[in-house]
């Protein structure tokens, strides 16, 4: 592999890791194993980089590799599976596309969207940020968060849902503003 190809590959990892992880998760891969599967897709891509047709979209090629990896998960022994349910993954895969452009969180604009989301997170009030971090960084359940913040679990779920919606709207707004510039 020549240095130019390697450089291209590194650039592609930076550009596509966020979207690829979203895509992998959207196929029903267990949250704990999302990075594992996405990394495997990058490694397969790296080992087959010479087969890549440079006129094609690298992101779509990566998603195709990841999709095949997830399809293979269904054939594995139950203890080694990285998906949460065969049947669920079955229907999610059926709705995905290996070649077409994926939209939103799973496609080629994913990194831009992620960066917009990070900007939105920065603007959150401290308590909201703590709540979100407890959920997404510490991986606490609504029950655990309720105990930590002296709230009841339904209130936690509602608060998280509200914040998710607000962040999503903020992200979309930032994307639209960026597109208008």
């Amino acid at each position, binding site marked *: 592999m020549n240095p130019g190809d*390697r450089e291209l590959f590194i650039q592609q990892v930076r550009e596509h*890791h966020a979207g690829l*992880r979203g895509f992998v998760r959207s196929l029903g891969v267990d949250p704990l194993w999302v990075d594992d599967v996405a990394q495997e897709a990058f490694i397969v891509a790296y080992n087959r980089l010479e087969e890549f047709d440079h006129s094609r979209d690298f992101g779509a090629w990566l998603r195709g590799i990841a999709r095949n990896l997830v399809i293979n998960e269904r054939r594995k022994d139950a203890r080694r599976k990285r998906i949460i349910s065969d049947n*669920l993954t*079955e229907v999610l895969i*059926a*709705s995905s596309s290996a070649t077409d452009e994926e939209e939103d969180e799973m496609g080629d604009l994913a990194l831009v969207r992620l960066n917009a989301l990070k900007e939105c*997170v920065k603007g959150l009030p401290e308590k909201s940020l703590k709540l979100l971090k407890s959920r997404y960084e*510490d991986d606490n*359940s609504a029950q655990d968060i309720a105990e930590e913040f002296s709230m009841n679990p339904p209130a936690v779920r509602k608060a998280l849902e509200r914040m998710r919606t607000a962040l999503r709207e903020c992200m979309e707004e930032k994307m639209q503003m960026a597109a208008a510039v």
Partner: protein
Amino acid sequence: MKPEPTGSELLQRLLHGEPDRDDLDVLAARAAEDPGFARVVADELAFSGLLSEAIRGGASDEGRAFETNLLSAALPVEDLLGRVRDGSATTYECDQVVKHLWESPEALMQLRRDLAMEEFFHEALSESKSEVAFIQSLETRMWAETRRDHFVDDFTKRLERELAPAADEVEEGKIVPFTGNWGRTAVQMGAVAAALALGSFFAVQMMVDRISSKPALAAVVKTSSGVIWSGDTAPGRDGTIKSGLYHLSSGVVSMRMASGSELTVEGPAVFEVGDDASTFVHEGIALARVSATDLGISLKSKGLSISEPARLIGIDARSEGTTEAIVFNGDGGICLTEGGKCRELSEFEAVKADHVRERLVDVPYNPKAFSNAWALLSGVENNLGSVRIEMPGTEISSEQGKEGEVQIYVENESFLPDRDLEVDQVVVGEFSVAEANPGQQLQAKGELRSYLLQLWPTEAGEGGEVETSLTFDHPVVGVIYSSDRLVSSDSSVGSSISHAVDAVNDNRGMDSGNDEILLSQDRRTLNLRFKGGGTQAEQVRVLVALN
């Protein structure tokens, strides 16, 4: 022409796990067109889920699963979707969701978007899911699969260039003001290394008679540059560590525990020292070394505990859902904190504890994540020249080195020689020519560690000079640089990795009469001037006394 399968035939294929991609597409289309058919499919899938759970579980499990499923069946679909989003849904719950998706195909795409968005929230809010963490982990795996692939070097350079925090982000006030000289740059000036030896490593003696209420349980013995502690607890100015929760924001710190074991932690890390000197690694990378004469170490991390400490064992607790344990030297036992499942590990084996499933999974030996901690724990520091400290288990190869590079292998972590060893004569305090010599006897007493240095010429065939200066944190008691003695000491001093290069290089040593060697007065620093004269690497074996 092949007849179109009926809905019933397609469903049978699905239930028997035999549908192909076309079957699924047709099935999905028919379910979308016919809600009645979609309901039948969903009911059958749900029943299959129940059936498989009942078969997989025992009699009591069956009852529990049935009860759980009954409760799940009463949940509104939004709650079930919520459980799928956070990854906590059971098989039955997933099947309920599948049933909903069959009936409402438009919900399918929304679920995929929601799942991807959940992943985004994790990436935006969790450090362990950050771009840097992902790329470093990918780099590690790439290294494991390709060993010395350019990918790693390329990536490292880019990360250093693009992602390293700006110097002005360092919070000066939080740096523990140790009195020693921790920096590496000061010792890289190339002066005679003897004068610098004490500056590169700083030993802090245990202080057990502290005036304060809590006794010292450990002491910092070494640190890398850039160590920053955050949180309320930090080591004392003299390096003493008492019980408490420690947040190491950056840098690598090595501590000697009261038991005599050594624990090295790489930031960002959170670890706890208990009143009984036990340690719990909440987050980050940790390496524990237990010497032959120590009392051992009590070490735990998220979801796992070390039941039998190996001589050198690593913990990687950077991930939220898993913790990895890796044995570098000796044999060790790892147990899940919950459930009591244990695994015996031998040298160069690794296991991952999956916290959600409460199970131990074998994973490939991949020490790359521990390279920074290992650089500090290996007991040797570079003062001059291009030096690479190889990870344990790295085989010596005649095709590995870069021009002008010195590779350092810790061949044998610790051993008690069973007979006197013949080593080469070295003049202490001044450079002398490394040449054939009568040798001298090193008495077999005390615990030793052996290092193998491999020096590569700068220009093939031209004999370009390589100079290096290395400081060891234990006194050097023997140096073997002649080819014959290297070969004869392989079996008694080296390890399996020492033998690989024999066949390709008869003149392994640096005893051609062109090279020079200097051991400092305090026997801690070794300077080598290697004038090459060939295309092959030359080797030097260094023995240090551990006690």
